[in-house]
């Protein structure tokens, strides 16, 4: 759309998810970034997709009930102090 230099809008949008996921190698990453700084439409799209990713990331951490944390602590203690309970050291 706007002064895409080496990457046009179609290519930038095709690569956008991998760009936001941090999965592009440096040269391609920089090319997409340069395009986003020059193209308002693609920048808006990137901004929205990043915002959505941020919202989703909040779902990734669960509230640990104290009773469950205690259950896990007991599990670890019983495991690691039981004379016959030994980890695989291979």
């Amino acid at each position, binding site marked *: 759309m706007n002064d895409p230099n080496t990457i046009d809008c179609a290519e930038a949008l095709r690569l956008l998810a991998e760009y936001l996921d941090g999965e592009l190698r440096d040269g391609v990453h920089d090319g997409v970034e340069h395009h986003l700084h020059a193209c308002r439409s693609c920048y808006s799209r990137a901004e929205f997709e990043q915002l959505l990713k941020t919202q989703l990331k909040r779902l990734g951490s669960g509230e640990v009930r104290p009773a469950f944390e205690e259950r896990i602590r007991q599990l670890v203690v019983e495991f690691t102090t039981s004379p016959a309970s030994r980890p695989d050291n*291979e």
Partner: protein
Amino acid sequence: MWRLSTRETTVWYSRSPNREPPPRTVQPQLSGSAVQAAAHDPETPSMTSAGEDRHWFEDAVLDVLPDLLGTARRLTRNHADAEDLSAEAVAKAWISIGTLKDRDNFRGWIFRIMTNLFISAHRARTSRPDEEPLPDESAAFSLFERLHQPFLLWWSTPEKEFLDKLVREDFERAMDALPEPFRLVVVLMDLQGFSYADIARQLDVPIGTIRSRLSRGRALLQKALWQHACDAGLRDAPTNQEDQNA
């Protein structure tokens, strides 16, 4: 019901009395059974520097526990099952601690254990194929394309206002509605931030499959958010034309 299998033991856990009975004695708490399972495994090698290992393992587990539980919650779509799955992963992690070559990799390693436990349990419960066919148009759905109005420039951003209207439960509902193969990949990427390569290793599939499932999963997720917003009156109901395009 979740199952923990070691080389010589199989331990079943169940919280719901309505589910099918387990093949062995059911213990109400995971810990006792899991400990006994490992304790009586004659093939588990001896442990060195037990105190140091124990404190390190406990700290590492508690540090990752909220993320582990959050992911388990999205995978199982049930609080009780999520706790059982997380606890199983911890138990399996201790049994397998010798396979952890670098302690810096503990997070990815225990997540891999948990996803494998989940996948194994899922495959034992259902005969569904891994990939559920999707209509082609679902893979292309984009909330941004549906909502963005370029002529508004900076005065208004309907797509951001749309997200502002959604609450955590809306996102959870949309995530939980994803078919399992897509949900697994979206959870590991967007919720936990693992790399495509990490996820490919965890799920034992090619990176190309991860890209494909991620793309389709995100499109399905956005479509579910859109549909929910329309159903809840957060957006005007889609027009017939929009329905055809959705």
